[in-house]
């Protein structure tokens, strides 16, 4: 138990660790973290309160914890799919822990427990905020509230196991291909898209007048046990409790089987991969060679790809979905100018969130000496990284722009403005990303996750993205002319992009030298 506790402590710190900074910048990091937490609390609490005000008069209060349950389960399923490889098959701390006098079962248990604990704390926090939101409108009976809170630890169990199982399956399948990470990502995106699609399909036979049963049916499609959970919470139904308990116990047993038997089997069966023995020695331009290396670097990192590629793919998926929807109600509510502006805001937001350059220099890490000691101009180095970003964002953005013309029915002028704005976003954000990374580099790291998700550069880039993308919405309230507000937003991004580009050209070389 003592060893388990020690390992849990270390692995917990690994999960929640943020970039450690020099003491004169830690205040900035703390402020940003507090700001993010407050924003999260505000958003969730506000959402819960607003939903409660709508659902309580309709006597559908329990739909809210039900929806939270379904959403959390979906989220944990996806999270565990991505985590399966790092937890069960290729854990990074094996080389450190295995030589120590620790039993294999304790090591495995600590890895699984820390992930479960993280999901449990998330579930408790989210459910707590949701119940608080409901209580502000119409408090639930104390027994119901207590039942929900006491049974929350069981919520993550089933998605925990399913996610790990699916993740392991994908790892096993993708291991037989040359480009393992890419195949794995395609499989994951296909599965997520499929789950999302299935969960949002409503049967034609649903009686929408019976709102409760319709909403329960919808929630059950997202998470099939949702009905059982709702019955247990509201009526303390014995059969529902039995069902939940059986599934939970089965999840625990299945997790043990996955961890103890299947994961080592999958790892042992991984085929050796050799690159093409007949790879020719072409000579290419410096930029072309750099771009090739940068692209390989990008695809080689699962966490990097997942965090940046998911935006454009979801954007494309969303636009395709819109093409098959009847948008007449939306088109009647907004003017074409407002619609164009809103479309640009959403595209710009996603393009900004998909930036790869804000961590590209940090991810050079221990390899940075190679490029620094070679005669590579700083501008060419930056261009190599920018090209990777543009490879990701430009084609998907252009495709989305072409497809959006179908449901939105924009005229040529409006579409051109939207296209111009989106291209400027594609130009501006990656340049800002490089600037942010040069200012807040993190080249010494033990896990890429710390750089990609938890570094100061990442946090700041998210802030910049939101600020620049949502600014036109604020301007639309100030100016009566929506097109003017929209163009001001585009103009600001263009100006910032140009200024950043000039700065990087003049000072980029010097800034690179200061990074150790």
């Amino acid at each position: 138990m003592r060893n388990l506790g020690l390992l849990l402590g270390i692995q917990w710190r690994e999960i929640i660790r943020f970039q450690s900074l020099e003491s004169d910048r830690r205040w900035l990091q703390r402020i940003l973290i507090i700001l993010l937490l407050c924003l999260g609390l505000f958003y969730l609490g506000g959402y819960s309160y607003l939903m409660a005000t709508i659902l309580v008069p309709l006597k559908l209060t329990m739909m809210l914890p039900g929806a939270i349950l379904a959403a959390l389960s979906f989220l944990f399923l996806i999270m565990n799919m991505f985590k399966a490889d790092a937890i069960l098959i290729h854990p990074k701390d094996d080389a450190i822990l295995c030589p120590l006098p620790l039993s294999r079962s304790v090591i495995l248990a600590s890895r699984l427990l820390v992930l479960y604990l993280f999901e449990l704390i998330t579930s408790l926090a989210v459910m707590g905020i949701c119940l608080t939101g409901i209580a502000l409108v119409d408090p639930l009976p104390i027994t119901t509230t207590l039942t929900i809170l006491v049974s929350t630890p069981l919520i993550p169990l089933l998605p925990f196991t399913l996610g790990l199982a699916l993740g392991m399956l994908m790892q096993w399948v993708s291991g037989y291909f040359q480009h393992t990470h890419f195949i794995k990502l395609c499989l994951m995106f296909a599965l997520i898209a499929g789950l999302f699609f299935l969960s949002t399909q409503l049967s034609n036979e649903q009686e929408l007048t019976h709102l409760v049963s319709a909403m329960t049916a919808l929630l059950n499609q997202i998470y099939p046990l949702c009905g059982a959970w709702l019955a247990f919470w509201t009526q303390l139904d014995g059969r529902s409790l039995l069902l939940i308990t059986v599934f939970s116990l089965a999840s625990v047993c299945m997790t043990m089987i996955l961890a103890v038997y299947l994961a080592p089997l999958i790892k042992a069966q991984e085929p050796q991969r050799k690159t093409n023995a007949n790879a020719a020695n072409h000579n290419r331009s410096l930029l072309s060679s750099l771009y090739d290396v940068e692209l390989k670097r990008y695809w080689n990192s699962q966490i990097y790809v997942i965090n940046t590629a998911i935006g454009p793919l979801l954007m494309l998926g969303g636009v395709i979905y819109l093409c098959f929807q009847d948008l007449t109600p939306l088109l009647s509510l907004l003017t074409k100018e407002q619609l164009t502006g809103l479309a640009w805001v959403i595209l710009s937001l996603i393009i900004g969130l998909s930036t790869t350059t804000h961590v590209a220099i940090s991810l050079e890490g221990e390899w940075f000496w190679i490029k620094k000691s070679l005669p590579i101009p700083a501008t060419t180095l930056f261009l190599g990284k920018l090209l990777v970003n543009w490879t990701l964002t430009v084609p998907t953005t252009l495709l989305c722009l072409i497809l959006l013309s179908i449901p939105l029915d924009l005229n040529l002028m409006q579409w051109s403005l939207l296209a111009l704005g989106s291209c400027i976003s594609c130009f501006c954000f990656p340049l800002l990303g490089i600037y942010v990374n040069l200012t807040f580099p993190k080249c010494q790291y033990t896990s890429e996750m710390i750089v990609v998700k938890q570094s100061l550069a990442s946090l700041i880039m998210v802030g910049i993205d939101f600020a620049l993308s949502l600014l036109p919405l604020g301007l639309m309230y100030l100016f009566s002319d929506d097109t003017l507000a929209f163009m001001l937003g585009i103009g600001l991004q263009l100006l910032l992009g140009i200024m950043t580009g000039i700065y990087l050209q003049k000072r980029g070389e010097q800034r690179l030298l200061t990074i150790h």
Partner: protein
Amino acid sequence: MLSIQHLEKTYPNQKGVHDLSLTLQPGDLTAFIGPNGAGKTTTLKCLANIHAFTQGEILLNGISLKEEPLQFKQHIAYIPDNPDLYTFLSGRQYMNFIADVFRLTASQRQKRIQELCERFELSEALNQPISAYSHGMKQKLALIAALIHDPDLLILDEPFVGLDPKASLTLKTIMQEMCNQQKMILFSTHVLDVAEKLANRVAIILEGRLVADGKMQEIRGNESLEKIFMELASHA
């Protein structure tokens, strides 16, 4: 000729390099020795443009590192003490990348890669991902990549660590061949025996300052390099 003039590199919380001046002539094989934390790696990294230096000047055949860093780096090659290489590339892909940077033609790189790989016995592993290489194989690959463009100045930080005896001998032979071709080599090492036998010049650094610099025979005299080094270290 390499000319390091009054090099200063300071860090906020630790010692750096102070007023270091060193000159290498074509044909010099200089051993750069000093205790841990003396400033050897800092000096070599400043020379390779990995770290910016606070003051001073570094010139290679008249080309200033500060004024023309790209031109400077065209003529040098650097290998750190523990070379981390791109694990997502194969050995061949990595060498092609380096060759692309130095604009070697297909035939030039083909010839150099083949020749160097045969000497270091790395030909069979060339198409495997670097992630599958042992430490020694990575060291060999880094050496081959450094030599591929025939640099005028070779900067090596502890080059013999991790090399098997055969590869060590190959490296020493190549270093001597380069010096015979009037190239310059500056290498750091803790193994004073190797420095004594291999180098024709020695530079000793202590606490960021150069305390001895000259021909091996002049510095050593009739004593061993180890004895000279210990005497200098005890006086510092």
